[in-house]
C-alpha cells in the first residue's frame, strides 16, 4: 500500500524533518516544560508512521528496520533501568537523583534536573519504537489474513 499522490508525497517530505525536530525538542525539554518522553516519543513515532503510510511498508522499514525497532524497544527500558541502577550503585536507592551525585545544573536550562533528561530520552526511544512497531504489526496482520 502506497499513496501515489504527488502532493501528499512532496508535503510529507517537507514536513517530516520539522515534525521530527519538534519531537526531539519536546523530549529534551521534558523536565522544564509541558511534554516529555512520552509526548515527544509519540510525535516522533507518528512521523515514522506517516512516512510508512505515504511511501509504503518496504521503504518505511528501510528507514527504521524491524530489528532496529526491536532493539530500541528493549533498549529504551534497559537504559531507564541502568540510569536507575547508577543511583543504587552510588549509595542511594533505586532512581536516586541529586543525592547520588547527578549534577543539578542551572534552574530552567536544558542541562538541569540531574538524571531526569536522561530518563526522558530513554522513554522517548521506547515510545517511538513502540509506536512504529505497533503500526507495522497491525499492517502485517492485515496482509497475512
Amino acid at each position: 500500500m502506497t499513496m501515489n499522490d504527488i502532493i501528499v508525497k512532496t508535503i510529507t517530505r517537507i514536513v517530516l524533518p520539522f515534525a521530527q525536530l519538534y519531537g526531539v525538542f519536546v523530549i529534551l525539554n521534558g523536565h522544564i516544560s509541558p511534554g516529555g518522553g512520552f509526548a515527544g516519543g509519540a510525535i516522533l513515532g507518528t512521523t515514522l508512521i506517516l512516512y510508512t503510510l505515504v511511501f509504503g511498508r518496504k521503504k518505511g522499514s528501510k528507514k527504521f528496520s524491524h530489528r532496529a525497532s526491536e532493539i530500541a524497544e528493549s533498549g529504551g527500558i534497559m537504559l531507564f533501568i541502568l540510569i536507575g541502577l547508577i543511583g543504587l550503585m552510588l549509595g542511594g536507592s533505586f532512581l536516586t537523583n541529586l543525592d547520588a551525585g547527578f549534577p543539578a545544573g542551572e534552574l530552567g536550562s536544558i542541562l538541569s534536573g540531574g538524571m531526569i533528561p536522561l530518563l526522558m530520552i530513554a522513554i522517548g526511544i521506547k515510545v517511538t519504537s513502540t509506536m512504529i512497531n505497533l503500526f507495522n504489526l497491525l499492517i502485517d496482520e492485515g496482509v497475512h489474513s
Partner: protein
Amino acid sequence: MIVEHLPILNLILFMSMALVIPLLRRQPFKITLILGFIVLGLVSVSSIYLLYHVNQFDAIHYTLGGHDTRFGIELLVDPFSALFTTIIVLLASIIYVYSSGDRTEGIEPNEYGRYYVLLFVLLMSLFGVLYTNDLFNTYVFIEILSITTCALISIKRKREAYSSAFRYVMMNELGSLSYLFGVALLYMATGITNISLIGQALQTAYETYPFNVVIALTFMMIGLGIKAAIFPFHVWLPDAHSSAPSTSSSLLSAIVIKVYVLVLIKILFRVFNVEILLDLNMRTVLLVVAGIGMIMGSVFAIAQQDVKRMLGYSSVAQIGYILLGIGLLSWEGLRASFFHILSHGLMKTALFLSAGEIIYYKRTRRVNDFDGIGFIMPVAMSVFSIAALGMIGLPFTSGFISKLYLGTALLDGRQVVFLGVLIVSSLLNVMYYLPIIILAFLKNEKYQYRLTSIERAPSTMIGPLVLLGLLIVLLGVMPQPIMQLIDAAVHTLIP
C-alpha cells in the same frame, strides 16, 4: 546493606528478563529457557532470604529515589509480602518447568517467546503489587497485571480465545476503574496514597468524611471482587480458563486471582481497620457473599462437561472459602484463609497441570472421556486424584488442614450457620470430583489388563506434577513450619 535493595532487584531481574527475550529471538530457544530458569532461581533465592530476614529481624522499608514516603513510592517487605512473594515465585517456577516441557500446548512456535515475555512481566507485576505500600502504585501494577493476563489468555489464535479475552478485558477494566475511583475518594479525604500513612489518617477522616470513606471502600471492594472472581462477579473466569493454555489457566487460577484477594486483605486491614469494618457491618456482608459463592460455585461446577470450565467454577467456590476466612475479621479467620491461599494454589496448579497433560495427549476436554485414564497415564491421574481429594478435604492433604482451621475459626467466631455452609460445600465438591476419580481408576475393565502405561510425557512435565503431589501431602501431614510464617504474616495485619 544489600538486603534493602533485594526487592527492587527482584523486580528489575524479571523486567530485564522480559526485555532480553525479544533480543534472543534469533538464537535457539533453549538459551531463553535456561536464562529464564536462572532468573527464577535467583529471585527464589533472594525471596527466601528476604523471608528469613524479615522474620528474623525487621521489616524493610525502601523508598524509590530516596524521597519522603509522603510523596514517593515505598516498597514494604514484611512477613506478609515476603511470604506470598516466595510462594508465588516457587509456584511460578514449577509452572515454568512444566511449560518448558509441554511447549505450552496450542501456541504457535513463533509465539513461544511472546508467551515468556508475558510470563515475566506478569511475575514482575505480581511482585510489585505485593511489595508496594502505595495505593496508586498498586493500581499501576494491577493494570499491568490485567493486560498481561489478558494477553496470556488470548495467546492461542482461536476465535473462542479472543471472545473470552474480550470479556475478560471489559470486566477487568470495570474493576480497575472502580478501584481507581476508590483510591481517588480516599485521596480526597486524606490527601495521601501511602498505605501506612492513610491507615493513620483514616481514623480522623472517617469521623469527618464518613460518606467518602464508605463509598471508597465499596468501590474498592467491588473492583477487586471483579478481579478476584468473587461470586456475583465471576462470569469471566470459566470462559477465560476453557480457552487458555493449561499453564496460563494454572497461573490465572492459582496465583493471579489470589493476588487480588491479598490486595483486598491489605486494604481491609491496613487502610481501613477492624473497628471501621465492624462499624459498617462488613462482617455480615463478606460472610454472606462468601457463603453464596461457596455453594453456587460448586453447583455450577457440577453441571460442567468441560474439565477446565469445571475447575474454573471450582476456583470460584474456593475463593469463597478464602473470603469466608477474611470475613470473620479475626486472627484465626485470616490465618485459615492464608493457609487456604497456599494450599489452594498448590492443588489448583496440580489439577490444571495434570488435566493439561491429559488434554495434551488425549486431545479431549470432556469429563466423560476420562474413563480408564488412570491406567493409561498413571502419574498424571494420580496427581489429579491427590489434588481432587485435597479439594474435597480428605485427611493427609493440605485441603483438610485448611478446612480444619477454617472450621475452628468459624466456631471461635460463633458463626455456626456458615460452618453448615462449609460442610455442604465440601459435600458438593465430592459430587463433582469423586466421579472423575472413579471413572479414571475403577470403571471400564477394558483397560485394566493393559498394564503398560503409554505415558510418554517428558520428565520436565512429570517432575513438576510429582513435586506438586508430594507438596500437597507434605503440607497436609505437617503444616507447622508454614503456620509459623503465616502467623507472623497475620501479626502484621491484625496486631
